[in-house]
């Protein structure tokens, strides 16, 4: 396992996309959090430290009005972790250097999850520094820890789902498309269909029935780890009661774990 991790470490360090993606995420975070912090600093109605930090750290995603953008950038590291192997014919070189497929896969999961989580942590730190620069109120320790863990966990799982998509499809382009479309387009379509059916039912405000599906939409559920108010709240009149941060994180974790288990099983069985 150590050898496989060493391989992954050198692999990540010696390819430009690692630096581009992390640099892009951090640059986006720096520019946007400085901009938002500046606007907050001149606002006539100052926000609480917790609220300010939530918005800065997630660049508005904590409001539920936007996706966690850094996760979409950093998530590509997961796609590339496996996608490059197939796109550039590296998989055979990799498996002749490390013939134990289990350790190769495990090392990719560990390295991708760790790098994604650390990159997310760096973005949170940038947000915190932006608040310091403009003299904004600091968040409570509780909120600081909760949101940081939530953001790191979501980003790591998001990247791991990208890794799994690439391993399942063995096609980097398809994996990128899945990573971008499933959380945004696919889940939105499912939500719209479910709500349409629910609103036309005999009990449109009941909490039972088909509306329960919505709380199991994996990326939406995982988003509860960093959202503090959400458009989903507006759907409560249709009986939609989402999971909290822990429950949502578990739903996303089970989904990503399932994807990884399936891709691992196929990785063991398929020809390289």
């Amino acid at each position: 396992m150590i050898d496989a991790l060493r391989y992954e470490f050198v692999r990540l360090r010696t390819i430009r996309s690692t630096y581009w993606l992390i640099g892009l995420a951090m640059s986006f975070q720096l520019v946007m959090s400085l901009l938002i912090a500046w606007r907050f600093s001149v606002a006539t109605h100052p926000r609480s430290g917790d609220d300010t930090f939530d918005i800065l750290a997630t660049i508005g995603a904590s409001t539920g009005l936007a996706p966690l953008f850094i996760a979409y950038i950093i998530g590509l590291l997961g796609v590339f972790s496996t996608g490059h192997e197939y796109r550039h014919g590296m998989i055979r070189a990799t498996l002749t250097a490390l013939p134990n497929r289990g350790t190769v896969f495990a090392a990719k999961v560990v390295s991708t999850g760790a790098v994604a989580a650390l990159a997310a942590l760096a973005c949170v730190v940038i947000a915190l520094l932006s608040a310091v620069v403009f003299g904004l109120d600091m968040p409570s320790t509780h909120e600081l820890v909760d949101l940081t863990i939530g953001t790191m966990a979501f980003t790591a799982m998001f990247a791991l789902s990208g890794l799994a998509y690439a391993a399942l499809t063995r096609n980097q382009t398809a994996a990128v498309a899945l990573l971008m479309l499933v959380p945004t387009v696919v889940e939105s379509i499912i939500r719209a269909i479910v709500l349409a059916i629910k609103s036309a039912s005999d009990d449109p405000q009941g909490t039972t029935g088909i509306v329960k599906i919505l709380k199991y939409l994996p990326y939406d559920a995982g988003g509860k780890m960093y959202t503090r108010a959400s458009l989903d709240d507006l759907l409560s009149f249709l009986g939609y009661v989402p999971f909290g941060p822990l429950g949502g994180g578990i739903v996303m974790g089970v989904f990503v774990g399932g994807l990884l288990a399936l891709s691992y099983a196929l990785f063991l069985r398929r020809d390289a």
Partner: protein
Amino acid sequence: MALIEAHALGKTYGSNRAVDDLSFVVRPGSVTGFLGPNGSGKSTTMRLMLGLDRGDGRTTFDGKSFSELDHPMRHIGTLLEAKPFHPTRKARNHLRMLAAANRIPTSRVDEVIELVGLTSVSDGKPRKFSLGMGQRLGIAAALLGDPDTLILDEPSNGLDPQGITWLRNLLKHLAGEGRSVFVSSHLLQEMAVLADELVVIGRGRMLANGAVDDFISHSGLGAVEVLSPDAELLGPALDSLGATVSHDGATLVVRGATAEQIGDAAHAAGARLHQLVTRAATLEEAFLEATGLSEEFRGSAVDEGGRS
């Protein structure tokens, strides 16, 4: 020094049996050539040997399968396809990455880069590499762990004549050190001077396995050229040997009998011989004869006007 033993290798794609019950041995201290027409299953066989493709059979390297080897690049060096690297990762970094997985010192990376002649471009991105340069980088990766065994799939692809000569000398030198070298190639003339042993397959099945000289001498395309002023006496004698005789001008081209048999038959028949020359088949002729019915992909004939 590793003895490679492949036993009952097999692979099926859908209804197509790509590799069927292949067994052979590659001995240390020799270069074993792996020949077969396009699509005959050579690359698939090599991947099966290394556990990269799932199939039947087992290959051992001194008794251990590839996946059982600790730090396999130190035991088996492989080149399986052209340009198996990320196009923007520097050549040296590509090798450093492989070395890291097998605890090979970084100093060895520079050694193999120099050995394959890529020092001047080692910090360049391989996407700018020609096919030959890519092959050299692949060969460098195969040699990285200073392995006992080399398994190389078409290593001379894209190499210029100097490169082919360099590769031939390198592989002969490595085999001379007692290593096992298993190499596939379409360059039959090259294989004729490189290989000691041959494994010849067609449609995934074994066609021949053994020493190169034996493979060639068993070819029916070898002949004895006979020049005799007493052809009318010699003809019946050759018929009695069961030989087939064709005419090339005044020369009789005899197949199916040795020069000794022909000489004895001529003496018994009272026929004078002015010339008795054994002409061995070339490796190319022997290969084409052996694989003639086993070509997976066969082009249509082209007439003199270029029409097929």
